[in-house]
């Protein structure tokens, strides 16, 4: 029997955690009742959120204890400010002591909260430091990406410093958003309103084919849950041999695709038949279509 699909894309951060974790297992740190809000937004005449746009806490994933953080994209695009960032950094540091089975980062963020500018940039850097410190332990950190606002800016770098990235086809992952590139370099460089172009360039399917995401799942919280459970044993060691292999892999990517104009050119060169139809396929059809081309390349 097929369980009812629960869209990850449509759900709030809190709703995602409710369905992702074992029923009733979630316990929140610094809950809304604590009212730890941004000290900077009121000066700009902007509303605050009681959790400053990120939910952190502990729970069970298939009975395994996990620490979790879920960014709420609806609040200022999930962007990282002083308090928001400190909650995530504290969670990652807590994992050093608690030694959970995994840390799950449900990332949905434009990156640095420009309304808190410098404090936001330093906060993202502190998240990065804490995450990289955790990579020395046995606790895998999984990035889950599939929300409306995507995962951009410094959080796009954070995502790729996790042990693995799980994306849905509607998720987006990158560094600079199309709007910023269009503002600075013009619409010919990146037409941010060309949705097909945006998803070909930044979306889950392309990131999966490129190797920027390790798993591509349907837009369903249950699918994210099942994949996270599968990846509880995953680890990407931060050691010299592994990083030299990654260096070689990234150099090969550049050599192989550096002159490609569009994602479809990359998919064609990858050996995917009829690449232009990939965006139209659902997740199951997509995996079937690309499996031969990816044979031997996916962990």
């Amino acid at each position, binding site marked *: 029997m097929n369980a009812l699909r629960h869209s990850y894309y449509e759900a709030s951060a809190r709703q995602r955690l409710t369905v992702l974790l074992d029923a009733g297992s979630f316990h929140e740190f610094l809950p809304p009742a604590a009212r730890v809000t941004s000290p900077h937004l009121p000066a700009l005449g902007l509303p605050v959120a009681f959790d400053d746009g990120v939910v952190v806490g502990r729970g069970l994933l298939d009975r395994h204890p996990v620490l979790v953080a879920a960014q709420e994209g609806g609040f200022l695009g999930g962007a990282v400010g002083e308090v928001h960032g400190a909650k995530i950094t504290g969670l990652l540091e807590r994992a050093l002591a*608690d030694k959970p089975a995994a840390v799950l980062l449900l990332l949905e963020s434009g990156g640095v909260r420009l309304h808190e500018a410098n404090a936001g940039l330093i906060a993202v850097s502190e998240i990065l430091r804490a995450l*990289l410190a955790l990579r020395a332990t046995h606790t895998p950190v999984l990035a889950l990406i599939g929300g409306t606002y995507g995962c951009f800016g410094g959080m796009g770098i954070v995502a*790729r410093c996790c042990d693995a990235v799980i994306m849905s086809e509607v998720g987006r992952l990158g560094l600079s958003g199309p709007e910023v*590139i269009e503002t600075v370099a013009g619409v010919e460089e990146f037409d941010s309103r060309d949705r097909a172009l945006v998803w070909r360039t930044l979306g889950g399917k392309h990131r999966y084919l*490129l190797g920027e995401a390790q798993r591509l799942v349907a837009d369903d919280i249950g699918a994210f849950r099942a994949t996270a459970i599968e990846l509880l044993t995953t680890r990407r060691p931060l050691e010299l041999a592994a990083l030299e292999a990654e260096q070689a892999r990234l150099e090969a990517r550049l050599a192989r695709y550096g002159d490609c104009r569009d994602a479809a050119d990359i998919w064609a060169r990858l050996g995917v038949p009829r690449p232009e139809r990939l965006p139209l396929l659902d997740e199951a059809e997509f995996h079937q279509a690309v499996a031969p081309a990816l044979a031997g390349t996916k962990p």
Partner: protein
Amino acid sequence: MNADDLLRQLFPAGHAVQRRGDLLAGSGRVDNETVAVVGTTNHAYIGVELALQLAAKVLAVVREHPGRALLLLVDTRGQRLSRRDELLGINGYLAHFAECLELARRRGHRLISLVYAEAVSGGFLAGGMQADAICALPAAEVQVMNLPPMARVTRIPLERLEELSRHSPIFAPGVENFFRLGGIHEIWPDSLAARLKAALGADAVTDQRRELGYERGGRRLAAEVARRVRERDHG
């Protein structure tokens, strides 16, 4: 300050740092110690190619010179803003650079960064900001984003952003503001060689920037919030 003057002042005993395009790489002498040098110049935009080169240089230091201190020289206008870089996954390239630096740190290489001209956003985040000691010349320009695109994204009028920039350390570009927030450890107004030597001699510690931000008054909540998440509600 330009890279040549900087290197002369940092390494009066001599250096072998070369420039290739926007990349700086090599080593310098501080008394009897050789320090590896990796960095950027020409206010570089960091795209996939330069990110890879930076990572490669760090890996070479780890592989060939165990324990050697690493000085990152920062002069960047941030990540390159192009469709091609996004298509190829520049966030992954910069993440790899950050991981290489973490590897170096973990293997006992002391990491010092010095912002000597410009430091912007993603270009600073993946490199210089990962150092144990983040330092800057007083005249360096450190910022998150130029105000016009910031105004467009935040939908706060440019005039209001400019006004806030005059008074708030949270917002305004500048070394002093980042220092107050704990984002820069030390400002080096003079005696660069002596300050570098002192930085080399300091012990490695965990990330103290939140505590610095609190002590200096720029960030009053970050340290406390992180501590509360770490320490409460066990069991």
